[in-house]
Each structure stands twice: as structure tokens, then as C-alpha cells.
């Protein structure tokens, strides 16, 4: 299992090596699938742009934009992640063992992001198909303009959850400080329990699907209407 020491090799070499490894494994030209990164020390842009089924373990906390644009790879951060973790993820899995800073999973199009601690503000902002499971709480303005995908919060949500929401599905187990414009509480149907059961299991959470409340779009603000001016 290869190990890359970021303190020795530097960021560009690290990402170049991992990107090549991911491509090679995807093209079945290599079976070197397990990689470990040592001494991340809050560095920016660790393990970004991977395009292939490799598994990366980051031994420590990361700075801005870890695991950005991820495709197929599994990235596990054994620490906390800075702003913009798993931004614009396409597929694959990113697991943060600690907390995630603001805009975790922003604009994500697919894959699964798991935050085992808390996520700060703007979690899942403008998400477009990603699934996000946060074991703890999330901050304000989360799922702002979220278009599709699922955000599951096992703890509490901050102010203005789901403001200007499109078709993303939001599930919160604890309290919601306030709902954003056009976000409303919705009924839990059997298909939602089924969806939650699968996501919670994949995210390693033992929370019960029945304990969650579903929130979604009231679909009143989709197109501009002058009568809604005060709500925008």
C-alpha cells in the first residue's frame, strides 16, 4: 500500500501521482488501489480531480477544497476538513471522520459525502445530485438553491435551511432553527423511509429513518413572479 508524505513530496506531485493511479486502475493497467497520505497538516486541494476507483486515506486534517471534483474514488479523511470539501463531486465516496467547514459538498452532482462530525454553514449549497449524510449538526443556509440529491442531517440544522430550494430532498432528525424561503415540511412516505434506510446504512449511522422529518420545496418561487418579490 503506497504512502505519500505531503511534507516531503509536495502537493503537485501528490495530486499527479494519485490522478495517474486512479486513471491506471480505471483502465485496468494497475491494481495499486489503496493509497495513504501523511502529513496533510491542513493543506489545500488534497486528492482533487481523481477519476478512477482508488481508495485514499488522508491521515490528518485538510484545508480548503479536499477531494474536489471526485469521480469514482473513495477518500477518507481521518481528521477534519476545511471549506469546500468534495466540491462538485461527480461520483464515489468521501468520508470525513471529524468536522467539515463551510460549503461541504457544494454543487455536487453525484456520489456520497459523509461527515461524521458537524458541518458548518452552506452545507450542500447548490447541490445537483450528490447525497450528503451528516452525523452531527449543520450550519446556516445549508442546501441553498439545492437542485437534486439528498441531504440527511442526524443532528440539528441552522437558520434558513433549504432557501430557494428546487428538487433536493432534505431530512433532519433534530431541530431546524428556521426554514428558508420556499422550503416546507413534507410528509414522510414509504419511499422516503426506504431511501433513508439505504443512505444511513451506507453512511454508518444507526439513526432510525422514522425519527427524521422531510423538507422540500413548496415550488412557489421557481419562476419570477412580481407578487413574490418580498420572498426572494
Amino acid at each position, binding site marked *: 500500500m503506497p504512502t505519500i508524505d505531503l511534507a516531503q513530496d509536495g502537493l503537485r506531485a501528490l495530486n499527479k501521482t494519485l490522478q495517474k493511479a486512479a486513471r491506471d486502475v480505471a483502465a485496468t493497467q494497475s491494481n495499486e488501489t489503496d493509497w495513504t497520505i501523511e502529513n496533510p*497538516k*491542513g*493543506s489545500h486541494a488534497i486528492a482533487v480531480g481523481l477519476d478512477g476507483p482508488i481508495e485514499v486515506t488522508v491521515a490528518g*486534517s485538510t*484545508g*480548503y477544497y479536499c477531494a474536489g471534483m471526485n469521480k469514482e474514488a473513495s477518500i477518507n479523511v481521518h481528521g*477534519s476538513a*476545511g*471549506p469546500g470539501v468534495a466540491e462538485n463531486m461527480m461520483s464515489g465516496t468521501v468520508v470525513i471522520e471529524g*468536522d467539515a*467547514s*463551510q460549503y461541504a459538498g457544494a454543487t455536487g452532482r453525484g456520489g456520497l459525502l459523509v461527515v461524521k462530525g458537524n458541518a*458548518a*454553514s452552506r452545507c450542500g449549497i447548490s447541490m445537483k445530485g450528490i447525497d450528503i449524510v451528516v452525523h452531527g449538526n449543520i*450550519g*446556516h443556509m445549508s442546501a441553498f438553491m439545492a437542485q437534486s440529491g439528498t441531504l440527511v442531517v442526524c443532528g440539528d440544522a441552522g437558520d434558513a435551511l433549504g432557501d430557494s430550494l428546487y428538487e433536493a430532498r432534505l431530512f433532519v432528525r433534530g431541530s431546524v432553527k428556521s426554514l428558508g424561503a420556499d422550503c416546507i415540511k413534507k410528509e414522510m412516505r414509504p419511499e422516503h423511509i426506504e431511501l433513508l434506510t439505504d443512505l444511513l446504512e451506507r453512511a454508518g449511522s444507526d439513526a432510525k429513518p422514522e425519527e427524521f422529518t422531510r423538507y422540500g420545496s413548496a415550488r412557489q418561487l421557481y419562476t419570477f413572479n412580481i407578487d413574490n418579490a418580498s420572498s426572494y
Partner: protein
Amino acid sequence: MCGIVGLFLKDDSLSPQLGGMLSEMLVTMTDRGPDSAGIALYGASEGSSFKVTVQSDDPATGFNGLAAHLSAATGSPCRIEEKSTHAVISTDGDNAEKLVAHLRDAHSALRIMSTGDSMEIYKEVGLPKDVAARFNINQMSGTHGIGHTRMATESAVTTMGAHPFSTGADQCLVHNGSLSNHNSLRRRLRRNGVHIETENDTEVAAAYLTHRMNQGRNLGEALEDSLDDLDGFFTFVVGTKNGFGVLRDPIACKPAVMAETDQYVAFGSEYRALVSLPGIDTARVWEPEPANVYFWER
């Protein structure tokens, strides 16, 4: 952008390393703002001594014979310790007002960086590593300190536009963000007799807190008040003689990470500023909540 670091020691055995630890933290934040850098350090106060840190663009002339001149002009002995473009003038506490007034009236070429019993401020245009080296910051000891590296937005890149800003004895503030109502607030504060030196937005925030504290509020309460009166983006780290405070605006776009152990409380714009601190791997590390005042006192 801008980068902020702060360190508030609980364990006095770390005091001799305060300047070294803060310098290292600040240098790590260089790429968040390379325009200017500054550090405020709170050392042990010596008896009834009062300190004024001044800056001169021409230290060879500006500081020449200054101690003797100030002693004669104020009628009390003044000592001076030169450090590059800065000099720390020490005098008896009873002579404080006279000294500051005389410096303002008769030495307008000297810029007053800070006044107080324990705080000294060193700031200049340039990179954190150069500013720290110029003033030998890593040799300095103390109880707490705050550092800032600036990417200028609201006013020019000058020594006086660098952070930390000090608007009251032993008080300082650093800021990441920009305030949008600083002009009107500056006018309001000036009408109330508050002295504000520059056109910089951050100085207004510092002056606002000083004004509130002069009205009897403590640092924590003054920070609470600022949530109502300041409009804009901010992460503030503030210092007083015995206190250390942190506040983020309710939107909280500007990053902030804190760490606490039995030995210290530390602040960094990013986690990487904290990675060299002793015991960081087992420290409690968290992101300060928006619109929540964090405040420690020794």
C-alpha cells in the same frame, strides 16, 4: 482574504516562546495576504511603567536624541528601545498622558502604533517573514498576542493601514473582511470625541469597541453591541490587557478555526496556521459559530 492568528496562553511556561509561536503561525498565513503584516504582543507589565510604540519612516533621524528630548519636555525620565522602524518609549505611568499629548503635538512625523502598560504593536508593509525578522518577534515573550497579514481592500497599503489597530490603551483588533458602514460610523464616533487616525474600515471597528468599553461595557459586551452596529463581513480577533476575544459576523463567510488545550487558546484563519502548536493533535479544535462572542480572560 487576509490571514489572522492569535494565541492566548494559559500556561506561563510557554511565555518565552510566544513571539516564536505567533511568528510561525503568521508566516504560514502569508498567501492569504502579502501586502503588510503586524503583530501585537502583550508582555508582562513592569511596575508602574507605561509604553508607547512609535514608528518612523526615518528612524536614524526620528529616534536620534528622542529619549532626552521627551524626558526634558515631559519632566519625567523616558527610555527608548529602538527596533528597526519602531521604538518603544517607556515612562512612568503618571507621565502617560503628557507623553502621548507631546508626541502628537511636537512629533507629528512619528506615528503612534500603540500605548499601554503591556502591549506593543509592530507592523509594516511587507511579508510576514520579513516583518517578523525585522522586529525580532520570535525573541519576544508575553502572555498573549495577535498577528495579521493583509490583503488590502478598503484603504491603501501603508504602515498605518496595516493591522493590528489600536485605539485605546492595551487594546487591539485585527479583521478579516470589510465593513460597509464605516464612513457613517466614523463620523458618529468622531462627533463623540473619539480619535480615529485613518480612513480604514478596521480602525473604525477598533474605535467602536474602545468607545463602548469607555462607556463601561467589558470586551465581551462591546463585541455583542458590534453585531447591531457594524454592517459588513468580519472575523475579529481582539486583545485587551487581560483578555482575548473572537467574533464572526452572522453570515460568517470569513474562515476561522480555534483550538484549546490546558496550555493555550489559539485562533487561525485556517487550520494549517495551528499545526505546529504543542499538543495540537489532541487539542479541542472547532469552528467558531457565527454571531457568537468568544472571550477569555486571565
